[in-house]
């Protein structure tokens, strides 16, 4: 513990006020930002025009939070995620991940895409293990972890199967295992269940919640499904149609673990109604 922190714990009350901000950050339970975004804009230059995809995004996502970003198709949710992951660069504004400005791909993360992005030429196990292989993690430990995760999502007998032998839901489970293998402090998901049928999706969000609770970490979840967003999240960020902006930041106070039936409870329905109302006022949903 540093001297400053020790000072805060005990002696010298006169020291405290002047050093408050410093000591606040050092307290173990203090809320720390994982992602900080200020005045972020993203424009795309097309043939004849410049399209503003994101307009003035300001948001802070704290460490350990599960945050969903919900918005209509084409509002720039995925663009925002790709910016946070450092795949593309903002046109304007400040974007920091773990306190550091993002200048290139962030490697301290696990990512799940809309499509599963499994490699057809690798088995399920190899597809998960590529994460360890590329990061040069110790092989034995990673293998054990990979097998554990694959079993955890119910694919124990499919370790040596190829992706084309699996259903859409199974494939996306494999890609989630790949994103979790290296215990990154940041998990990013870009509409991971968008292509799945409703029943599979219900199972997926329950599984995801369970795996996240086993090892909570900062999670960013992009979706256009309001119920999915509420079910999974501590916070739901609501985005407007293009040019995308965050119009509402809703804290979801529902106890975990959440069961699928929670969607029938008044508190849940209230959240849903609130978000739907926002979309209606933005004319995303017409009557």
């Amino acid at each position, binding site marked *: 513990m540093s001297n400053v922190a020790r000072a805060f714990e005990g002696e010298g009350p006169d020291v405290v006020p002047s050093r408050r901000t410093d000591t606040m950050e050092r307290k173990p339970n203090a809320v720390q930002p994982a992602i900080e975004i200020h005045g972020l804009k993203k424009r795309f230059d097309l043939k004849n025009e410049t399209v503003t995809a994101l307009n003035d995004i300001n948001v802070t996502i704290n460490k350990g939070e599960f945050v969903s970003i919900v918005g209509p198709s084409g509002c720039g949710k995925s663009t925002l995620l790709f910016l946070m992951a450092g795949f593309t660069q903002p046109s304007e504004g400040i974007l920091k991940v773990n306190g550091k400005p993002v200048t290139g791909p962030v490697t301290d993360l696990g*990512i799940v895409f809309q499509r599963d992005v499994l490699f057809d030429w690798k088995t399920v196990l190899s597809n998960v293990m590529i994460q360890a292989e590329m990061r040069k993690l110790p092989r034995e430990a990673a293998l054990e972890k990979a097998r554990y995760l694959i079993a955890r999502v119910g694919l124990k007998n499919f370790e040596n199967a190829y992706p084309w032998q699996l259903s859409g839901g199974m494939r996306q489970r494999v890609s989630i295992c790949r994103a979790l293998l290296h215990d990154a402090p940041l998990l990013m998901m870009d509409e991971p269940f968008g292509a799945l049928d409703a029943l599979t999706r219900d199972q997926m969000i329950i599984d995801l919640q369970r795996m996240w609770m086993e090892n909570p970490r900062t999670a960013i979840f992009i979706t256009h499904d309001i119920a999915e967003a509420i079910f999974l999240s501590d916070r739901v960020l609501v985005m407007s149609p293009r040019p995308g902006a965050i119009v509402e930041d809703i804290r979801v106070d529902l106890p975990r673990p959440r069961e699928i039936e929670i969607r029938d409870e008044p508190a849940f329905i209230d959240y849903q109604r609130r978000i739907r109302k926002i979309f209606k006022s933005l004319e995303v949903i017409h009557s």
Partner: protein
Amino acid sequence: MIMRWILPALSFALAVAIWEMTSRAGLVAQYILPSPSVIAKELYVQRDLLLAHTYVTALEILLGFALAVFLGVGLAVLLVYVPVFEPIIYPWLVVSQVIPKVAIAPLLLMWLGFGLLPKVMIAFLVAFFPVLIDTMIGLRSVEREPIYLMQSMGAKGFRSFWHVRLPTALPHIFGGMKVAITLAAVGAIVAEFVGSNTGLGYLLLFANGSVNAPLLFAALVVISVLALLLYWAVSASERVFLGWHISHRSR
């Protein structure tokens, strides 16, 4: 099994039988179209001669093909990864392909002499373009997500190429290689026509000049079998490398 082997074999046997019968019935003169049995006998009697010439032609084809694959894939990687090369090199490639190779064969002979080299070069020139084009298409058909995924794992450059771009391009590369191997055979034979004293192409011309129809047909049979075997070899290696691909999954 029946669909794959027996039916094709039956249809082939039937065709040969009809051919043999029309020939024996005297409907076609032997010096115009020798019967299968005569060709078979010639194949046996002249086996040493045929084999010696086959060796030369096979070597030309294989060297030309190998060069085509090596340079085709290499150049495609260069053109895709270093975009500035494309406007510099690509027009030359297209122009070089528009000129009929057969037309420049005499020129190559003049430049490179009478030996193996001009034949390999012509086989290469004919076979090279499909490999290049298909590899370029393959390397460019990678979506952005797999590349992003690799970046998130800290893998770029060669590792991203090796683990994502190359496997994605592989089905296209093999498609190009299958076209290339048959074209390389055509190139080698034509090059032998133009100027040579060995090889199956030379043997074909020689038999033609001496009105030796059985030998001509025997040479033709050997050329066909050789081309078929080479194609089969490429196809078999494709099955080994692309077992995962949608075109090879067990149905």
